[in-house]
């Protein structure tokens, strides 16, 4: 983790709160047309931390995650990963002014940020094995045989060693999501973003995906997880973050937020999702 190429620890130390910070967002603002979807979101995530985000539908959780790896542009504030903005660079001359980076540079910055989508988004024309091997092979230039070997090991890790040659269309939702997690891990990310990884799954498949995520937590992965699986939040999260109307309403240890939140909205929201599950 320390000697990753392209990770400038020096810059990280000077630009953000400290070298232990993986991601820091400051006053992030995002509009879609006329509506303000993120209205000043600030949060820091340290190395090895697991942050679970909850909040009502439309409160901006997905949008925030997408902004972190620049799947969405932001209209204000800044998001730093390892002390450097993702998708933006400092403009020449004028201090503090950020300009959007060239696509190639953006792609490079995304390499060590893993993203797991609600709807898996596996590549349907590739086998499970090639879904996992494709990015190391095509992006990092890992020799194909090596990439496949690593992919096989990752599939084993998510319990799908026997599905290597299956196409996504031949896999269940839970299996597809586990392949998607393996695919993200293949790039050896230092930060993993999960956007409701189990909400498109049939109830009986939720457990197998949560189990894989818990293993990642045990391995010390830094994770931001949008989920309403409160069991996962309680047992695996260091912090629970409550989103509401484009801002972070409050955050804290999961147990505290669940039993003694600072806002009535948090209480009613959490009670509703806990009872619903």
């Amino acid at each position: 983790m320390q000697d990753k190429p392209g990770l400038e620890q020096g810059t990280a130390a000077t630009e953000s709160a400290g070298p232990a910070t993986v991601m820091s967002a400051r006053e992030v603002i995002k509009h879609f047309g006329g509506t303000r979807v993120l209205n000043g979101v600030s949060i820091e995530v340290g190395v090895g931390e697991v942050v679970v985000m909850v909040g009502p539908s439309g409160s901006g959780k997905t949008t925030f995650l997408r902004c972190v790896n620049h799947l969405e542009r932001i209209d204000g504030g800044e998001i730093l990963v390892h002390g450097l903005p993702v998708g933006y660079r400092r403009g020449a001359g004028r201090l503090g002014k950020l300009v959007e980076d060239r696509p190639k540079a953006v792609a490079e910055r995304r390499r060590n940020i893993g993203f797991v989508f609600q709807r898996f988004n596996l590549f349907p024309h590739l086998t499970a094995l090639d879904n996992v091997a494709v990015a190391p092979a095509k992006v990092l230039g890992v020799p194909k045989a090596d990439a496949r070997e690593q992919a096989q090991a990752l599939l084993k890790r998510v319990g799908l060693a026997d599905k290597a040659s299956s196409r996504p269309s031949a896999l269940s939702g839970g299996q597809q999501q586990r392949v998607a997690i393996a695919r993200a891990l293949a790039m050896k990310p230092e930060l993993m973003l999960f956007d409701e990884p189990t909400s498109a799954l049939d109830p009986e498949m939720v457990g197998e995906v949560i189990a894989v995520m818990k293993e990642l937590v045990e391995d010390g992965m830094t994770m931001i997880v949008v989920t309403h699986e409160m069991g996962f939040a309680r047992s695996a999260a260091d912090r629970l973050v409550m989103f509401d109307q484009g801002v972070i309403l409050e955050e804290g240890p999961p147990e505290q937020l669940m039993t003694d939140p600072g806002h009535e909205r948090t209480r009613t929201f959490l009670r509703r999702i806990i009872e619903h599950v």
Partner: protein
Amino acid sequence: MAGGYVLADSAPGAGFDWSFFWHYLFAPSSTFLDGLWRTVYISVVAQLLGVVLGFLIALAQRSRHTPLRWAGAGYVWLLRGTPLLVQLVLVYNGLAAAGVYRFNDVRVAGVIVLGVVQAAVLTLALNEGAYMAEIFRAALDAIDPGQAEAAHALGMTPAKTMRVVLLPQALRIIVPPLGNEFNLMMKSTSLLSVIGLQEMFLTAQSINSATFKTFEIFLVAACYYLALTTVWSFVQKFIERRLADPGRAAPATPSFRHRLTGGARGERGVLSTGDIR
């Protein structure tokens, strides 16, 4: 009986000359075969160039640079909005008459390529490019945006995303309309007669003016066009099957009969007998 035919031979318009028809159908003259050959190779070369050009124009239309998008849209508007016949005459006769450019015969790798053939291939390819651009655009639009997002999240540049993720999926969508385009292309070559290119149609016309066997010789030409498009439809079915997702397609190895008959009949046969599992 035989006498009747001799009479018909010498008197134009006096009936159908079967012996002439069979003769030209099964033992066509070398001039006719030359015409047939030109029809085939001009179609193939123009279609290949048209596919490449169409892809490039589709890329331009999806570019983040506005002038490129406009150029792409303008190209399609212009080339689809004017008749191929007019384009042919403009490129071959018009440019020469205006003193802008005259297509001269050139020698490429020991083979003489006629000026008129150059103009024909160029115009057909330019025209086809506009139609292929629309086909590529529709195919790329049909792919779930989550595919490109997943590729981006893995650190792929836009170019890599296109090559590794989008294009392979688009090709599957493109094959049926591409087959249609090539079918049209082979028939469109008959228009080349207006610029004096001795392809199959003009050859038939010359034979007609020498023999006055109008119905017979054009029926022969029709048979040959039909043979070309029929052979192509088999090739197309074969390609479609090769590109199909093995996870979804029923037969792993289509039978010879299946490949020969192609299409719906074959599919139905497979569905009724092949679903043993």
